[in-house]
């Protein structure tokens, strides 16, 4: 399945909540303020550093650029909205709002 997370990991527990439930092999898509979790070297980077061992993790390109984020955690994949559509085609989706 596909999990979308749109909250900053510094302010909101949504990503932690998602990772507690997501199963090995599930895909995680970071969008909106959720993409801050993909940033390397932060106090919350460990969440996604761990997550990429069990999950494919994507972050929406336009959201990364809007926030000036280029220094990403290794193995995070950058996704266009078109890639987002492809992921939705492949999996049912749960939004961790």
């Amino acid at each position, binding site marked *: *399945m596909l999990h979308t997370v749109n909250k900053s990991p510094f302010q909101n527990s949504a990503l932690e*909540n998602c990772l507690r439930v*997501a199963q090995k092999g599930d895909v995680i898509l970071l969008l909106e303020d959720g993409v801050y979790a993909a940033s390397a070297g932060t106090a919350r980077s460990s969440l996604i550093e761990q997550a990429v061992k069990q999950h494919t993790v994507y972050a929406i390109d336009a959201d990364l650029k809007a926030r000036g984020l280029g220094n990403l955690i290794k193995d995070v994949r950058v996704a266009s909205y078109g890639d987002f559509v492809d992921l939705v085609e492949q999996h*049912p989706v*749960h939004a961790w*709002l």
Partner: protein
Amino acid sequence: MAATGKKVMVTVRKAPHGSIYVQESIEVMFIFATYDMDLSVVFMDDGVLALHPGQDTKGLGIKGFMASLGALVDWEVTKVYVDRQSLKERNIAEDAIISIGKDEETDAPIRPKVLDSAEIAAMMAVQHSLVSF
């Protein structure tokens, strides 16, 4: 609409009263139940706070939705689950959560079924669609 019995899950993850999401999620459950979907409802994270006993919103001047929650079973919303860890973190006893209806024969209160996160994950994985609040 034709009933196709598709599996649909409503997840409730936000705290009640500070925002309207829990209340509007209940309206969704009531309507979905009339559609012959295979509906499941999961309270997790702050959503389990909606099941806290003794809620009384009179002092806020807000009607609240405790009566609706207590009538879920009457409205045929019967597959209702709650996440064990979320309850524990919030110090809510599993047998203290509010009832969502009564057993027709014994009149015993029916409460949401407590599940571990692995059970919830397995249930999510087989849904046709998931609606989250």
